[in-house]
């Protein structure tokens, strides 16, 4: 019998998928769209995510642990599903790939301004491929190791106690804001990744309590976003945050040890761990989907081609802003998927149940 995902590993896995390159700039988005005390927005958005997770839980309950692909294929003919599978796997593969490319471009801006970024990108893709070939259980274990090697950085927030001023937070909530609806979507993008839990269903059993794990994962992410937002607003202030592209990196640059300065580049390296899990899981999801179209091909070949195609497409955007734009649109599609997919699945399941009863 195959090993099933444990609750702890799954919670951490979800947190790690949610943690991508967005962590560097989320506080800037909060300040830009929500103005004063924009960090508070993470809480209502997280509640929305929880609502969405609850929707997905009903898919699990009604489907009694069936894979979402099985549910779909029971009622929808293959010729409709094939293009859908291919399209959604393209979206997933691209999200994974572009997240990595954005990470590389930021790294390049700081450390290697004239080296071809695709060299680093390919190196990361090779790592991702090696991790992918080990299977989901091992990925989840690796992500736990990566979690412990990065979560300690939250303690760095204590470093800012001296610089934190409550006056900078101001007593106003969401004043100086701009287009809050758009901002809401932008912040939602920072939470994406949890929706992949729909694909985890067949890899779990009752003991996993999958959706409780997803909820916990999201909770860790929310607490981390909220705390770092609180500290960032108190240290930098919402006015300056609006003009900073990567506030987290500037905050990290604040840390200075007696024997070493410019330590932020070192810290930045640690974020590779969280980025790599995000990209591996999106590639994995793309693989799950393409496997339904070409079931006879070995899974590693799937991954190889997915990574290759995504890599080739990722050659097109070379400017950081374009990548962010692409990621934003892909993210919007993903938000759509996160809400519409469970809805369709619940309807299908109810219909299938009725048909059975008749």
């Amino acid at each position: 019998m195959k090993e099933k995902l444990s609750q702890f590993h799954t919670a951490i896995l979800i947190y790690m998928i949610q943690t991508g390159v967005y962590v560097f700039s989320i506080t800037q988005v909060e300040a830009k769209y929500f103005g004063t005390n924009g960090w508070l927005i993470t809480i209502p958005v997280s509640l929305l995510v929880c609502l969405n997770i609850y929707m997905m839980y009903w898919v699990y309950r009604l489907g009694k642990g069936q894979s979402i692909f099985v549910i779909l294929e029971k009622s929808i003919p293959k010729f409709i599903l094939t293009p859908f599978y291919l399209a959604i796997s393209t979206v997933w593969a691209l999200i994974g790939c572009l997240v990595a490319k954005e990470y590389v471009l930021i790294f390049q801006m700081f450390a290697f301004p004239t080296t071809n970024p695709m060299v680093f990108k390919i190196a990361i893709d090779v790592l991702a491929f090696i991790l992918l070939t080990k299977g989901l259980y091992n990925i989840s274990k690796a992500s736990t190791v990566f979690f412990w090697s990065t979560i300690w950085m939250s303690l760095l927030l204590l470093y800012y106690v001296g610089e934190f001023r409550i006056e900078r937070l101001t007593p106003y909530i969401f004043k100086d804001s701009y287009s809050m609806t758009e901002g809401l979507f932008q912040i939602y993008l920072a939470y994406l990744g949890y929706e992949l839990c729909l694909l985890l269903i067949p890899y779990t059993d009752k003991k996993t309590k999958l959706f409780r794990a997803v909820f916990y994962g999201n909770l860790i992410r929310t607490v981390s976003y909220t705390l770092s937002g609180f500290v960032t607003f108190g240290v930098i202030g919402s006015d300056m945050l609006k003009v900073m592209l990567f506030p987290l990196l500037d905050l990290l640059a604040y840390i200075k040890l007696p024997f070493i300065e410019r330590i932020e580049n070192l810290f930045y390296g640690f974020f590779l761990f969280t980025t790599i899990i995000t990209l591996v899981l999106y590639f994995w999801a793309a693989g799950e989907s393409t496997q339904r179209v070409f079931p006879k091909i070995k899974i590693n070949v799937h991954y190889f081609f997915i990574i290759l195609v995504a890599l080739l497409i990722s050659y097109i955007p070379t400017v950081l802003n374009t990548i962010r734009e692409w990621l934003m649109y892909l993210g919007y599609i993903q938000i759509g998927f996160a809400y519409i997919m469970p809805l369709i699945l619940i309807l299908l399941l109810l219909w299938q149940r009725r048909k059975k009863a008749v």
Partner: protein
Amino acid sequence: MLKKCTCLLLLLCILPIFGCGDQRILEDLGFIQTTSYDMLPNGELSFSVSIPQADPETSAKREVLIATAKSSKEARMIMSRQTGMLLVSGQLRNVLFGISLAENGLHGHLDTLFRDPSISSQVKISVVEGSAGELLIDDYKQHPRTGRYIDMLLEKEALGQTIPKVTLFNFARDFFDQGVDPVAPIIKKHGNNYITTNGIALFRDDRYVTKIEPQDALVFAFLKSKFREGQISIDLTEINGKKENVMFSSLISTRKVKVTRGVQGVEKVTYHVKVTGSVLEYIGDARLNNARERRELEQRISQYISKKGDAMIALMKKHQVDNLGIGTYVRNRVGYEQWKKMNWRQELQKIPVECLFDVHIKDYGKFR
């Protein structure tokens, strides 16, 4: 398995080759440590940089490059033609602005510094009374090489609160934040012998407006935030009528700002500052071991500092600057709409600001 390992090994060997494009060889790099910006009388900008020498073949301790250009990046290109080393700014520690440039506004120059990812946001900023270039170019025989000398001086003085520690990050934050104006330490060259800190530069937005004299710098620190460590020399002759001098040291200061609201908006702003410290030098008639006389001395010191504080606030009101950040407290108290309607610089002139100091002599040494 063997094949897999060989492939991986090959890949590992090939990958680093790509990195050769951006390689950095330590001996070939000129790490800019300090840079200075000046405005020349004809309106042109003059830049100079100081680079510590690591090459054992040269006897010089540092290299100084000078250029006149329209922007700092252009100046760097000109300087680059003067040296065999590749100029990099990753280790930049200090930026000095000549006072003439500071009067014209620093924003454009600070923007370049902040935008460049290779420059740390922890770079220290100072204003030089006179020409920043001249101060940086000179060697001061009794001191370490000039760049390091300035850096050590600023670090040490900031610890004692005689100047604020102002980094690029601090300066930019106060520049962008509402209800507070930036400050920077002032340094000055004395002949070819030494450099001193010389008070605090007060900015309106990004323009230098006026300064606080070095002897009053600690009073500014009392009002700006809480701190530990520092000393202040107090001449109470004016208050007492008799000759009386106190050296008040090992200071611990805490501060509270109270904004009182009235019908017309803000009625008054009060600074409550509590200072404790030791008196290790006292010239005067009071007996420090007598509790009553000590309390009287405490009161005289409080009076003295309060007076200085009031004068400082009057100076800021006169120049319409708010370097203490009184505006941030008022903003948080009056409500968002009212704050937006307010022209804070003008409003500040009307609002009474009071400094109440509460001084405690913690100890007076090991002698009665």
